[in-house]
C-alpha cells in the first residue's frame, strides 16, 4: 500500500514535469516559428525589392537612355546596315 502510494506520487510528479517541459517546448517552438516567419517576410521583402531593382535597372528606357546619352550610340541608318552571308 505504501509503496504504491510513493510510486503514484512519483508518476504524478513526472507527469507534471512533463507538462512543464511540453509547455516550455511549445513556447520555444512558437518563438522559433515567429522568428522564421519574420525572416521569411524580410527575405520575401528583399526578394521583391531585388526583383524590382533588377527590372528597373534592365528597363528598356534606362538602357536606351544610357546607350544614347552616355555611350553616344544610335540605331543604324539604312545605309549603314551591311548584310553578310554565312558561307
Amino acid at each position, binding site marked *: 500500500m505504501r509503496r504504491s502510494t510513493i510510486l503514484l506520487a512519483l508518476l504524478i510528479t513526472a507527469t507534471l514535469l512533463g507538462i512543464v517541459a511540453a509547455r516550455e517546448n511549445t513556447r520555444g517552438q512558437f518563438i522559433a516559428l515567429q522568428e522564421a516567419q519574420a525572416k521569411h517576410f524580410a527575405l520575401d521583402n528583399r526578394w521583391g525589392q531585388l*526583383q524590382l531593382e533588377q527590372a528597373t535597372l534592365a528597363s528598356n528606357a534606362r538602357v536606351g537612355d544610357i546607350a544614347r546619352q552616355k555611350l553616344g550610340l544610335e540605331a543604324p541608318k539604312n545605309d549603314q546596315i551591311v548584310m553578310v552571308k554565312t558561307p
Partner: protein
Amino acid sequence: MTQPRAKFRAPSPVPLPAWRATALWAVVTLGLVVMMAQAWRAQVERGPFLRDQGALRYLRHFALPAQRGPILDRSGKALALSVPVQTLWVDPRLFDAQQARWAQIATALGISAATLAARVRGGGSQFAFLARQRAPERAAAVLALHVPGLYSLHEDRRYYPSGSIAAPLLGFTNVDGRGIEGLELAYNAWLQGKAGEETGLRDNLGHPLALLGAARPAQAGRTLTLSIDRNIQYVAYTALASAVQRFQARSGAAVLMNARTGEILAMVSYPSFNPNDRADYRPGLYNNRAVADTFEPGSVMKPFTIAAALDDGSIRPDTTFNVNTNCFRVAHYCIRDDVRHDILDLAQVLKYSSNIGAAKISLRTPPADLYQMLRSVGFGQVSGLGLPGETGGAVPGWQGWDVARRAAMAYGYGLSVTPLQLAAAYAAIANNGIYVQPTLLRRDSGTPLHSQRIMPAATAARLRDWLTGVTRRGGTGFLAAIPGYTVAGKTGTSIMANGKGGFRKHQVNTTFVGFAPAKDPQLVMAVVVREPTQGWRYGGVVAAPVFRVTMSAALHRMGVQPDTSAQTWTATTAEHLTADQERRWAEGAGDAAH
C-alpha cells in the same frame, strides 16, 4: 459539609437509528453522481460545443494573404510584380488616448497632423487605416514608436516595372489587389491565389501569443506568361509615341503578332499612363485602343475586296480597270483617287490605292460574298482574347447595302474595325489564307489556338505578291520598307465620319498594316494613328514609319533571316524619293527616343 461530588458519568450512548447514516451516504453519493453526470455532460456530451463557444470568445482568425502571381513577358521578364508592403492601422479606442503623440507619428508618416486625425476619425470605431501599403522599412520606423493602438498588417503592392509601355494592356489592380482593368482583370482568378488562415491568441498589441491547430496556408497566385516581348513592346510604344507627337495626333495604337501562331508580340496604345501612380488612372488613358477603339479603316480593306471578288470568280487575277476619271459617280456620290491613273491591274489598284478601282471591283461582286469574306477574317466580332473593353466593331448585314454602300465598303467605309482585327485579318493573307486566332498567352507548342482556312492559298499568294508592290518605289507604303527584308503591306487614310452622315474634312485616321518577310511571312503588324494634325496626313507617311521601326526591330529580335540584299534595295528605292521622303526613310530603325 460539602457533599461529595457526584462522579461524572458519560451519558450513555443513544443508539441512533441506522437509516440516518444510510441517508447521509445516499445524499453524498447522489451529490457525487449528479456532479459526475454534469461533468460528463459538460466534458463529453456538450464538450465540443462549449469548447467552441469558449474559443469564439478568445481565439482570433487571421487571414494569411496570398501573393498575386506575376505577369511575365515571353522570355520571363517581369511586367507586373507583387511586392510585400505594410499597412498601418489603428484601433481608435486605444489610439485616441495617445493624442499627445499624434504629431510625432504624423511626422514619421510624412503627413500633417490634421490628415492623421482625419484618417483616425474616417474609419470605424475599432479600425481605421492610417497609411496603406508603405515600404516595410518606413512602416517599421513608425511601429518602432510603440504606440498603443497602432498596428500593422502585411499586404502586397503591385508594381509595373515597364511603366507606361504596356500599361493599357496589363491594366491594374485596386488597392486590395483585385484586377480591375486589362489583363489584370481578365486573368484575375488565375493571378489572385487563395488566402490562407491561422487561428490563435494575440495580445492587445496584435502580437501573436500562440497558435491553435494547423494553419491553412495561403496558395500564391499563378504566373501568367504572355506572348508579349518586352523589347518589341518598348520599340512599338516609343515609335508610336514618337509618331503621335510628331504629327500632333490624338492617339495611336499598334498590334504586332506572329502570323503563324497568332501570338501577339506587342500591343501598344498611346497616350498611356503610369501604372505605378494611382493618380494617373483615368479612363481616357488606360483605355486599350488596340482592342477598344473602332474606326473606319479605309484603304487597308481593299485586299479583302479583291480576295472576295477573286474567290467567287467576279474578277480574274489579270482583270484590269479603267480609272481614268476625276469622278466615278455611284448613286449621288463621287468617288475619287488622290492621283489620277489610266488603266490599272489588281496589283496597281493596291499599289496606288485606287478607290475607283476598288469600287468597280466591289460593284461586280455579290455583296453577300464580300460580307462573308469580311466576317470570316474576323471583322464585326470580338477576337476571343478575353480582354475587357474589347469591341467587335461593326460590319452591317449585306442585305441592307445599297449601291453606294457596296462601293464604299470596297475601300473601307461603312464598317468599323479595331487595330487587332486588322492585324489578325492580314495574318490570314500572310499565312497562306488560314486565319489564326490571336492570343496573348505564350504558345509553347508553336501551333495556333484555333485556325481556319478563309481563302484559297493561291489568292493569298497573289495578294502577298501585290501587297509587296505597295512598299516598293512609287507605292504608297514605301516608308514601311525595311532594308534586307521584303515587306508587304497596305496604307490606309480614312476621313472621319461626323456622325451625321457626312465627314469631317480635316480629321483623318491613318493606318498601315503589313507583314514581313513578304516571301515567307513571319510577323504581321497593324498601326493606327488617329487625327494627325501636322504634315502629310497619310497612312504611308504617319503610320508606315512606325511599322518600319518596330518591324525591323522585331525581325531582328525574333531571329528572322533577311531575304533580300539591303544594298540593292536602297539603290532602287532612293531613285524616286523626294529629299524629305529620302531623309525619313533613311532613318531606318530610327532613334525613337521618347
